[in-house]
C-alpha cells in the first residue's frame, strides 16, 4: 500500500539563502509530485534554481519552508545523519562530474555506498550492478583507464547498487560526447522501463525530450511543461502554481500514452509492480 504513495511530494517548498535585503530566493512555492516508476525531466537554464531543487530532492539540503515527503516520510526537518541514511538507502545519485574516486577500481567505486550500511556480499552486489550497465569486463579498471561514457556507467552502477527508490541524475550527459550521451540515456530509459523512478535534471531540451514528463524551472518557480522544447524555447510558463493538481490527474492514467515520445510504451506500470517487493525490504 505504501507503494501508492508518491516517491516525491513537495508542498509549497521554499529555499532562501542569506537573510534581510540580500536574501536570495532560490525556490519559491514549489509544489510537485513524482510517482513511482516515473521518468521525470527537470529542465531549466543555469541560475534557475535547478541545482537547489536537485539538492532538496536528493536530501542533500533541507527546505527553508514547506514540506518534503519522500515515500510518505517527512524529510524536510531531518537531522544530517538521518538525511545521510535516507540518501544511502533510498536515493542513487548520478553526477555530471561522475565523482568517481580515482584511486579506486570500478568495483571499489561501486561498492562505496554499501560501506556505509550493514550487510555483506558487497563485491557480488557491485559486480551485479556493473553487469547491469554492461561493464562486467571492466571491474578492476581504474577510472582513468575508462572512457567518459564508461565512467558515467560506473557511476550509474554505483547509484543502482543499493537498489534505491529514486535515481537522481544531475546533468548526467553534461560532460559527454553525443555517442556516450546516447549510451547513457539508453541505459536510463531501460532502467525506467524496468520500473525505476528517475529524476533527470538537465538544461538540454533534447535530453529532456526523452522523458515522459517534463517540469521546467525558472527563477525558482516550477511549472509543468506541456511540450518540452516548445516551453523551453518560448520560456513561458504554461501553468501556474495551480498546475500540480492538473498534473496529478494527468499523470494518474492518461499521461503515458499522450506525452511519452516515440519509444516509451505504457510498459512501465506492469513492469513496476514486480519490482516493488524488491525495493521495500531495504
Amino acid at each position, binding site marked *: 500500500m505504501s507503494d501508492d504513495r508518491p516517491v516525491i511530494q513537495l508542498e509549497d517548498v521554499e529555499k532562501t539563502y542569506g537573510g534581510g535585503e540580500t536574501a536570495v530566493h532560490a525556490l519559491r512555492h514549489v509544489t510537485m509530485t513524482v510517482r513511482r516508476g516515473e521518468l521525470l525531466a527537470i529542465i531549466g537554464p543555469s541560475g534557475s534554481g535547478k*541545482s537547489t531543487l536537485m*539538492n532538496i530532492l*536528493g536530501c*542533500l*539540503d533541507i527546505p527553508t519552508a514547506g514540506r518534503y515527503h519522500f515515500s510518505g516520510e517527512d524529510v524536510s526537518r531531518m537531522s*544530517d*545523519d538521518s538525511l*545521510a*541514511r535516507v*540518501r*544511502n*538507502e533510498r536515493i542513487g*545519485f548520478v*553526477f555530471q*562530474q561522475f*565523482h568517481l*574516486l580515482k*584511486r*579506486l577500481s570500478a568495483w571499489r567505486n561501486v561498492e*562505496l*555506498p554499501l*560501506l*556505509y*550500511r550493514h550487510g555483506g556480499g558487497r563485491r557480488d552486489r557491485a559486480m551485479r550492478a556493473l553487469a547491469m550497465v554492461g561493464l562486467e569486463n571492466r571491474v578492476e579498471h581504474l577510472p582513468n583507464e575508462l572512457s567518459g561514457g564508461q565512467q558515467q556507467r560506473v557511476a550509474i552502477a*554505483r547509484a543502482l547498487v543499493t537498489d534505491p527508490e529514486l535515481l537522481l541524475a544531475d546533468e548526467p550527459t553534461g560532460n559527454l560526447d553525443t555517442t556516450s550521451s546516447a549510451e547513457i540515456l539508453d541505459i536510463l530509459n531501460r532502467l525506467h522501463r524496468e520500473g525505476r523512478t528517475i529524476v533527470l535534471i538537465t538544461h538540454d531540451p533534447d535530453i529532456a525530450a526523452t522523458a515522459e514528463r517534463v517540469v521546467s524551472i525558472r527563477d525558482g518557480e516550477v511549472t509543468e511543461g506541456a511540450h518540452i522544447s516548445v516551453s523551453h524555447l518560448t520560456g513561458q510558463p504554461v501553468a501556474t502554481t495551480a498546475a500540480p493538481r492538473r498534473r496529478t490527474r494527468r499523470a494518474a492514467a492518461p499521461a503515458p500514452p499522450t506525452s511519452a515520445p516515440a519509444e516509451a510504451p505504457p510498459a512501465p506500470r506492469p513492469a513496476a509492480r514486480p519490482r516493488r517487493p524488491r525495493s521495500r525490504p531495504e
Partner: protein
Amino acid sequence: MSFFQTLATGFRSVSGQRMRSLLTALGILIGVAAVILTVGIGLGARQSITGRITALGTNLITVTPGSTTGAGGVRTGLGAASTLTVADARALDDQSVAPDVIAVAPVVQRSASIVAGSQNWTAPATGSTPGWLVANNRTMTSGSFFTDTDVAAHTHVAVLGATTAQKLFPNQDPIGRVIAIQRLPFKVIGVLNLVGGQGFSNPDDQAVVPLTTAQGELISGGSLTTVQRILLSAPTRDAIGAAYQEVNTLLLQTHHVGNASTADFSITTQETILSTVDSVTGALTLLLAGVAGISLLVGGIGVMNIMLVSVTERISEIGLRKALGARRGDILRQFLFEAATLSAIGGLLGVCLGLLCTTLLSAFTPLTALFSPSAALLGLLIASSIGVAFGVFPAIRAARLAAIVALRSA
C-alpha cells in the same frame, strides 16, 4: 562504516600517497628516535656511574664533619669543620658499641707532589690506618699494606695506587724504592689493586701513608687528633642500615648533641650516594627527553598540517561520500584513522631508528646508550596519540563540510 572498513579505507588512502605519507611520518620518526636515544643515553650514563660507585664498595659508610641537613642558623659547609677526631674513630672500632661495623679508617688527605727519581707526579696523599684497606674493599697487587705498628711509630712508608705506581715507576717494580712526598722520603712497601674508576677522585691514583705521619708531617697546621673523615664498612649490604644507626647514636653521644638535626657530622652511605646519582641522572634524562619530546610535538604539527591539506584536496571526495550516505562520524573516523596511521608508521620507524642509533652509539663512541623497551613503547604510544590529537582538528573540519558545498567544489 564498520571498523574494519575504516581501517581498509585509511590504509588505502595512506598508501596511495606514499611519498607524502613518508615525509609526514618523518617528523614523528625523528621525534620518537630522539626520545629513545636520549633516554638511552641517560640510562647508559646512570648505569656507568652507578657501576663505578658500586666498585668503590657498596658497604662503605662515610662520616664527614659539618652537616648537610643545615636546618637554620649559621652552619659551616660540609667537611669544613674539624669536629671528627681520632678518638671518634677509636670509639667506633669497639665491637661492643658498633657490632655492625667491621672496619674503621680515619682519613686525612691532601694533594701532594710526589717525586721518584726524575718522575714528578701530583696525586692525593691519603693518611689512614690499616682499616682503610678493608673499608674501601681493596686488595694488594704486590707488597703489603702498612700495619698498626707503622701508624703508632709514624713511619715513612707508602702504598701506591696502580696508576700512581705506573706514573712514577714506568715498567719497574716500585717495591722497596724511595719516593719523596712533599720532599719527605717515603719507602714504597706496596701497590694497590686496579679498580678502574675514573672521573672524580680516581681511586687508582693516590699514595696511602700511615695516619700519624700524614697528620704530623704532610698536613700543614694539622693536629694529631682531628681527621677529615672516617670511613667505615658494614659486613653486608643489609647491615648498612644497622651500622648507620649505631654510628649515629654513638657520635651523637660522644659529641654531646641532643637533637639529631643539629648534629655536627654527617653520615653518607653508598646507598644515599646512589640514590642521589639516580635522581640527578633521572632529572637529566627527563630534561633531554623533554627536548626530544618537543621535536615529537613539531612532528605532530606536521601531521596536522598534512591532514589539513589532505582535507582541502579531498573536499569533493568528502562530498561524494556524504552524498552516498556517510555520516559525520564516518568521515571523522576516516580522517582520524589516517592521522593515527601516519603517526604510528612514523613511531614504528622511529623505534627502529632509535634502536639502530643506540646500538651504533654504544659500539662506536665512548658513550653508553641503553635501549629501553619501555621508552620505545611510550614513544610509540605518544606518537599515535599525537597523531590522533593533531588529527582531530582537520577531521572535524572534514566532517562538518556540507555535502553540497563539498560536491560543488570539484
